[in-house]
Every structure is written in structure tokens, then in C-alpha cells.
């Protein structure tokens, strides 16, 4: 139980120079290990399984950040999705890699809409999805989505009938290049507008449409510049 007084502590870089050098070598060697482990797999590798194979004193977050920086300008980047990490080709090189592209399964418009609803509203029940879309879900659309591996059944809602709730998977994050769910495009705007709630927000109101040509209190008349800039001038002949 008692630790030796001179227990080896991970030296901070500002210590003696030799320690600094040693720490760097150690970090380097651990970076190589992490690099190799992630590189070997085509699927994202979890932090848990990386940690399992590193020395106990390894600082995985620091290693990953270092690696991510090292690769940031390269043709291959280190990408986080959820708590998993993977090497992926740089986004700007898509043009040269089209040969590798896999024929994508075409999802129907309904299926994609459902996918978005599940991703943004999760956990969400089928009835709630239908409420948002205003239509009954056709048979098999959910099945198709489940088959993609992008959505999953999460559990059951604690309401009468205990309906199944749906949510997105890590594979979804990986496929769409999202670090985490918070990276969903437009999420903040939707949230801010109260559009991710299932019920009408308290303060939600639609301004009474104003038919009159007169401007409201919160409106300014157009200036001449505006008119030009916005292209509001009637079109003239060539």
C-alpha cells in the first residue's frame, strides 16, 4: 500500500531537461501505439479499448489531441465520433478518391425525413415522428432505417403503452462525420426557435399578418441602397 517516496511521476515538460526529453519520448512512443491501433482498423476505435492497451499512466486525451494536430494537414485525418476515433481521408480530397466510392443506397424522402427527426428529437417514439410529419409511417420505412445501422431502438418511454423510443447510433455519427450529436447541423437554430419540442412552446406566436403597406414599429423603410442591393428595382430591358 505504501508507495515508495521516489515513485515515478509523469514528469511535466518544465522539469529538468532530461526529464522533458524522456517525457517527450514516452509521449511519442505512446502516440505511435495509439496511431497504430486506430490506423489498423477501418471502424472507429473506442477510447476504452485504446486505454486498455496503453500503460496505466498514459494520458490518452493528450495523445489524441497531439495526433489529431499532427494529422490535421495531411491527406488522412484523425476524426472523433462519439467516444470513438478513426482515421478518415481528408474531406477536400473526395474528388481524387471517387474510384473508391461505394454505391450508396438511396433512401426515400420519407426515410430521410424520419432519420432527421430521430436524430434531432431523440429519444423519440414512432407516434411522435408521425405527429411531426403529419402522416402515418409507411410499413418498412423504419425497417429500412434500422437496416442502415444509423438508428436503433433505445428503450421504452415511461408513458401508458410504453412505446419504444428511437435514437441514433455511433455509426450514424461516423457516417455523417459528426463528432457528437451536438454537431448536428443547424441544431442550435432549431433549439432556439423551440422547434425541437413536441409541444407548442409557451411563447410561440405567429405575428398577426399585417396586410397594410405601412411598416411596423420594428421595421425601417428601404433606402435607395437597399433597393439596389436587394435587386428590388423592376427589371429593365436589355
Amino acid at each position, binding site marked *: 500500500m505504501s508507495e515508495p517516496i521516489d515513485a515515478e511521476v509523469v514528469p511535466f515538460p518544465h522539469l529538468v531537461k532530461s526529464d522533458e526529453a524522456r517525457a517527450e519520448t514516452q509521449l511519442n512512443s505512446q502516440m505511435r501505439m495509439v496511431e497504430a491501433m486506430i490506423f*489498423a482498423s477501418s471502424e472507429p476505435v473506442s477510447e476504452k479499448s485504446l486505454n486498455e492497451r496503453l500503460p496505466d499512466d498514459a494520458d490518452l486525451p493528450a495523445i489524441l489531441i497531439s495526433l489529431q494536430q499532427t494529422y490535421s494537414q495531411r491527406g488522412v485525418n484523425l476524426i472523433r465520433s462519439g467516444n470513438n476515433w478513426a482515421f478518415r481521408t481528408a*474531406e477536400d480530397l473526395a474528388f481524387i478518391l471517387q474510384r473508391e466510392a461505394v454505391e450508396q443506397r438511396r433512401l*426515400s424522402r420519407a426515410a*430521410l425525413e424520419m432519420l432527421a427527426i430521430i436524430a434531432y428529437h431523440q429519444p423519440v417514439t414512432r407516434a411522435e415522428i408521425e405527429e411531426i410529419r403529419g402522416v402515418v409511417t409507411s410499413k418498412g420505412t423504419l425497417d429500412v432505417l434500422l437496416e442502415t445501422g444509423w438508428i436503433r431502438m433505445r428503450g421504452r418511454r415511461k408513458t401508458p403503452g410504453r412505446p419504444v423510443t428511437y435514437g441514433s447510433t455511433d455509426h450514424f455519427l461516423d457516417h455523417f462525420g459528426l463528432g457528437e450529436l451536438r454537431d448536428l447541423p443547424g441544431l442550435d437554430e432549431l433549439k432556439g426557435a423551440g422547434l425541437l419540442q413536441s409541444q407548442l412552446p409557451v411563447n410561440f406566436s405567429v405575428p398577426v399578418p399585417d396586410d397594410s403597406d405601412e411598416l411596423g414599429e420594428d421595421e425601417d423603410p428601404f433606402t435607395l441602397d437597399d433597393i439596389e442591393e436587394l435587386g428590388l428595382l423592376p427589371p429593365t430591358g436589355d
Partner: protein
Amino acid sequence: MATVRNPASEIKVVDAGDGIDEEVTVADSNIGEQTDLWSATAPVDRAVADPQFTIDVDGFEGPLDLLLTLARTQKVDLTKISILALAEQYLEFIEELRKLRLELAADYLVMAAWLAYLKSRLIIPDMEEDDEPSGEELANQLAFRLQRLEGMRNAANLLVNRNRLTRDVFARGMPEPVIVEKRSEFNATLYDLLTAYAAERQRRSHSTVRIARRAVWSLQDARNVLFKFIGTMKDWASIDSFLMEYLVEPSMRTSVMASTFAASLELVREGKLEVQQSAAFEPLYLRAVAPKVVPSSTEEMPGNHV
């Protein structure tokens, strides 16, 4: 005639004047034009293929979708939309469709009824003691749902147009033959499990149905048998008498009788057979039609049958 155009969607109602060539074309191309992922719900293509039936409400994902498309023709931000004007537009649109005697799914009509109600609530001032939500509240609800749906449409669009794995971004093409993940030795997802279970139960439930299926004597079977006997039917003969051998199997009895009766009527129509019955539920007698017939009298009819 009314033509409304905007870049996001197009609704065109063209009245050619004679009321017959009235044509409604709806093209909804609001989402995902730039991606190949949307399976084309191309109402336009269908319209080209079948000019007589140029509106396909199926092209819409339900009444809310139709409302959203109509709302876009107001060319304003959804937050500034006039719900009253929108309700009127929807009702007009539905009316237009009904003039064409198109079958409309029930939910479109339900929405129409609700919008008509909403319209009245918006026009007539609310009663003070009314417990129901005010017209304005109802309008807000609808506006909220429209905005929420549009929000999801946009989100879906943003999502599919991201740089995507196996399309724009690629994983290691040649993973090394080592499995790095160590979650559990066996790998199965809940989906795998449920698919297996459902498929298994489904399969068994089907086999049950198959067992219950009954053997049937087809009309053609009956015709063949009647043809076989038609030469021997110079005289009136009870239908039972020559079906005897086919009636042995109890489960077949009904089918044999029904098909033979139907086939015999067919042969009567073709002038090859005559049928007679003294009263309801009495035995049926058949006879071949002779080429030159001496009309036979009822006295010749054998009466010794039960």
C-alpha cells in the same frame, strides 16, 4: 386560371376553358435537388406519362406536407405566414381537386374540415366563456407544426449533403487482420435479434395459414367433367348422378357442387346444355342440347330422385 411560381415549389392550375382539360400540376422539388439520395417522388414525370391524371396527391407526404408547399407560395418566412390565407388556399386547392373528381385520401379531407373550422374561428371573435382554444391558439399550433416540419426538412437536407463516409470520406481500405475492438466476443445488435425473432415467428405463422387452405374445384375442372358426360346426357339426368364419384371427399363437396353449377350455367349460355329444376332446393336436371330438337315434355322427366 391561376399560376403561382417560386423556385422552391410550383403549383400550377391551368384552366383551358372547356373544363375538361383542366390540369393541375404540382411539382415539389424543395429538398435535396443537389443530392442523389432522394428517391425521386417525381410527380412531374408521372404527369408527363399520363396527361389525363396529372395530379398525384400521393406525391405529397400527407396534408401537412401539402400545406407546407402551399405556404411556400406565400413567399414569406414561415414565421410571418398568414394562417388564414393558407387555410383558404388549401381549401381552394382541395376544391379544385374535387372538381376533377379525384379520389382524395381521407386525411386530406379531415385537414380540410379542420381548416374550415379554423377559418371560422379566426373570423368570428372568440367567446369569452369558451373553453376551447382560441382561433389564434389553433393557428399558432398549425404554424408551429409547419415550422417544425420545415425545420426537419432543412435538417435532413443539411445532413445528407455533409461529407459522408464511403462517398466523400473514406476509411482505411485495407484494415489489418486484427480486431481492435474488444467489447464482447460475440457480436449481435438488438436489430439482428429482433429481425431474427420476427422472421422466425412470421414464418411459423404463415405455415399455419397454409395448412388451413382448402382444395378447390376450379370452374375449368367442372367444365371438363361436364364435357365428358355431355354425350351421355341425351335424357334429363340429375346433376348428382354423374358427380357421385367426385363428391366422396366431404371437404370437396361444396366446391364441386358450386363449380359444376356455375359451369353448367355457362354451357347453357353457350347453347350446349339445358337445365331444369322443379322448385327451389329440388334436384337439378341436366340434358345435352340436341342439334335438331324435338322439345321434350316434363312427363319424360324421371321423378324417382329424392
